């Protein structure tokens, strides 16, 4: 895993500047601290910062094909590279290295852009085809790795992170009100839109070609489900056998395809327990695991983490995170995340990846993706129950099922029946394409009330929900309601929030690569064909996953109520230390200058948070606190300041230089 960046001349202007390229690479140094490199000719410059994981000796980038007519800068892993290399060698391609990067170059030579279909991995890459005078961008199917770009002064600039684009001072740094509106509705911007105006993100599962200044983006893969009733008709037992085989293969592949040791995260939940158990059972390498503990017992899962670590005889380390710890690192977290966030959950993950790195590891396998592909989130259960209520609104019996929702929550529906009944019965229109997510979107959208009138009016010009609906696949209406909910969750939240703000950015902040067996392309394709009842059987979430691996997981973990990963929100900022950064960014003059929020409303709200020390606040108020503070931090880091985080640095040495201009 690495950082990539570059400059493409759209007209016949001067060759890309080395100084700008090096500054861009320097801003990605945390993604690639082991070495760096660049290629430059009169039209194109490709930069690379390397986190060396595969082929430590000869895998430096950028690299090329046999006759130097195709160059690449690549961030990620192609896990099936050995199989592809063997096939390509058989077709006459000659390899100079043992890296997965070179496999991409030859695969592109052989199959053109159809090569992306053949990759099982996680990637963002840029190819420069000199013979065809064409640049190709590509991103993995589900958006594990990121790729941003912008056009400025007849040059196209691209990078793994937006801060590298801002290393060119001519790139304008402004919020995109529609991007903020997406965050204040879906929790994340939806690619190609980003938080910043005129900065685009290549969509997951897409490649783009840039030729003669024209950018053409095309999907090579999309999230899709069969029509309701046309799902796989195999029995549960048959599905268990196939699913088990796929997940074991996916986990082994991600654990063994590395030239450095690979560790694993253990959350205490089912997903990471299963991937860690597979590694322990099916590989010979010693298992090294890492966990987050919380001082606040409401969030802590330590007893479950210890239980599975002991069972697997893992060399286990954890980090205890206090409310104050979260408040301390939050400005750094937002500098890395580059977007407003609505929960503090990424902050402990930032601290965890630091522990991983300090323990001498730079790759971890995690359980991300299981909740999306196997229907683990509470939102799926919630939608199912709301649909159940909608089928007979006059029923006297049905409301009682609400007691099954959110048992872990302090104010669970079972404990506040009247409130829950009113809340979950709102907007019960099964024909609404966003039926499953409507309560979340409505709650989140209340954040918009804090925006100042002008910004809010700008944001409202784009109806982000209608825009999302207009991008739904034609077959969407024919899918099972659970599949519709899965699609919405994957499109709005998976790539931009789970895998990026909470995933890639928090890992790469400390130069650690994440690998996600549940997002293996073969597993995802298989899971999408399953009947809904094999994923969510009545209210038993991730049903097939649990029965597939019940022999490997202690019953206490298998049967514990689903507890989503959460961290303390408002108490992290207002219950302990008096953080200078909060006083600074919520100063009335700063709020006025930022011109995003209504200063009076924010001032009043922050005072309320201080008065109650962040405690006993509603779920929505906790979200408001994080949203306001993170938005103002993004403004501070990227609009007021230049995105450098204080100072620019040089990319890591040694620097491989291929300069055709000098």
């Amino acid at each position: 895993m690495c950082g990539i960046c570059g400059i493409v001349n759209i007209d016949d202007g001067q060759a890309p500047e080395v100084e700008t390229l090096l500054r861009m690479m320097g801003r990605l140094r945390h993604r690639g601290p082991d070495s760096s490199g660049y290629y430059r000719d009169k039209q194109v410059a490709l930069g690379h910062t390397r986190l060396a994981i595969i082929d430590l000796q000869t895998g430096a980038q950028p690299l090329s094909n046999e006759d130097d007519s195709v160059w690449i800068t690549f961030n990620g892993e192609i896990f099936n590279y050995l199989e592809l290399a063997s096939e390509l060698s058989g077709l006459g391609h000659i390899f100079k290295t043992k890296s997965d990067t070179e496999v991409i170059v030859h695969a592109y030579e052989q199959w053109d852009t159809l090569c992306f279909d053949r990759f099982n991995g996680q990637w963002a890459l840029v190819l420069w085809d000199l013979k065809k005078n064409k640049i190709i961008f590509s991103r993995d199917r589900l958006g594990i790795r990121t790729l941003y770009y912008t056009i400025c002064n007849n040059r196209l600039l691209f990078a793994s992170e937006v801060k590298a684009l801002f290393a060119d001072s001519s790139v304008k740094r402004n919020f995109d009100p529609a991007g903020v509106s997406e965050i204040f509705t879906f929790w994340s911007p939806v690619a190609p839109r980003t938080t910043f105006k005129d900065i685009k993100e290549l969509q997951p599962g897409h490649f783009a070609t840039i030729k003669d200044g024209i950018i053409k983006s095309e999907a090579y893969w999309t999230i899709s489900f069969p029509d309701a009733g046309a799902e796989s008709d195999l029995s549960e037992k048959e599905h268990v056998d196939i699913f088990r085989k796929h997940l074991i293969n996916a986990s082994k592949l991600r654990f063994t395809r590395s030239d450095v040791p690979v560790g694993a995260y253990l959350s205490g939940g089912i997903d990471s327990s299963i991937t860690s158990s597979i590694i322990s059972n099916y590989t010979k390498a010693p298992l090294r695991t890492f966990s987050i503990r919380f001082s606040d017992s409401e969030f802590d899962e330590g007893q479950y983490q210890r239980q599975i670590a002991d069972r697997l005889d893992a060399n286990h380390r954890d980090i205890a995170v206090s409310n104050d710890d979260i408040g301390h690192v939050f400005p750094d977290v937002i500098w890395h995340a580059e977007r407003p966030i609505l929960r503090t959950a990424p902050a402990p993950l930032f601290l965890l990846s630091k522990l991983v790195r300090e323990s001498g590891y730079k790759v971890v396998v995690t359980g991300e993706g299981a909740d999306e592909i196997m229907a683990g989130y509470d939102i799926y259960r919630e939608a199912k129950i709301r649909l159940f209520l909608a089928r007979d609104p006059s029923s006297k019996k049905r409301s009682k099922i609400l007691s099954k929702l959110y048992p872990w929550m302090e104010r669970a529906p079972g404990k506040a029946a009247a409130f829950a009944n009113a809340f979950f019965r709102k907007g019960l229109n099964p024909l609404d394409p966003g039926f499953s997510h409507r309560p979340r979107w409505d709650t989140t959208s209340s954040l918009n009330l804090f925006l100042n009138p002008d910004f809010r009016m700008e944001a409202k010009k784009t109806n982000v929900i209608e825009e999302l609906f207009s991008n739904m696949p034609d077959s969407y209406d024919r899918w099972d309601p659970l599949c519709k909910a899965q699609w919405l969750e994957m499109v709005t939240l998976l790539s931009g929030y789970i895998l990026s703000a909470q995933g890639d950015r928090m890992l790469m902040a400390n130069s650690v690569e994440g690998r996600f067996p549940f997002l293996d392309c073969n597993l995802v394709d298989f899971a999408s064909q399953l009947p809904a009842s094999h994923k969510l059987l009545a209210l038993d979430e991730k049903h097939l996953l649990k029965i597939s691996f019940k022999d490997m997981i202690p019953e206490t973990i298998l049967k514990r109520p689903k507890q989503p990963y959460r961290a303390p929100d408002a108490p992290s900022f207002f219950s302990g230390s008096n953080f200078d950064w909060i006083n600074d960014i919520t100063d009335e003059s700063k709020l006025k200058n930022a011109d995003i929020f209504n200063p009076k409303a924010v001032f009043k709200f922050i005072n309320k948070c201080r008065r109650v020390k962040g405690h006993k606040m509603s779920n929505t108020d906790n979200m408001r606190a994080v949203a306001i503070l993170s938005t103002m931090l993004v403004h501070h880091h990227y609009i007021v300041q230049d995105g450098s985080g204080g100072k620019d640095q040089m990319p890591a040495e040694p620097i491989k230089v291929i300069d055709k201009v000098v």
Partner: protein
Amino acid sequence: MIKKQVKRRIAEFARTYKAAKNDETKLLLVALFVEDAFGIVLSDDDIHEKNFGTHHAIENFVLEKLHLE
């Protein structure tokens, strides 16, 4: 859906969910499953132990509703 598929789905459900005798919430879980899996819309009167109290009863009820008995 044919009779064999209905029986298989109910058997799969039965492996995870115990019988819903004397438990109103469990009856509702069966109702949720029956509506989801077989596209039947139930009345409050249908959600009753006589229909959902045992797995055999669920099977009979669903087969009858789908005219597959």
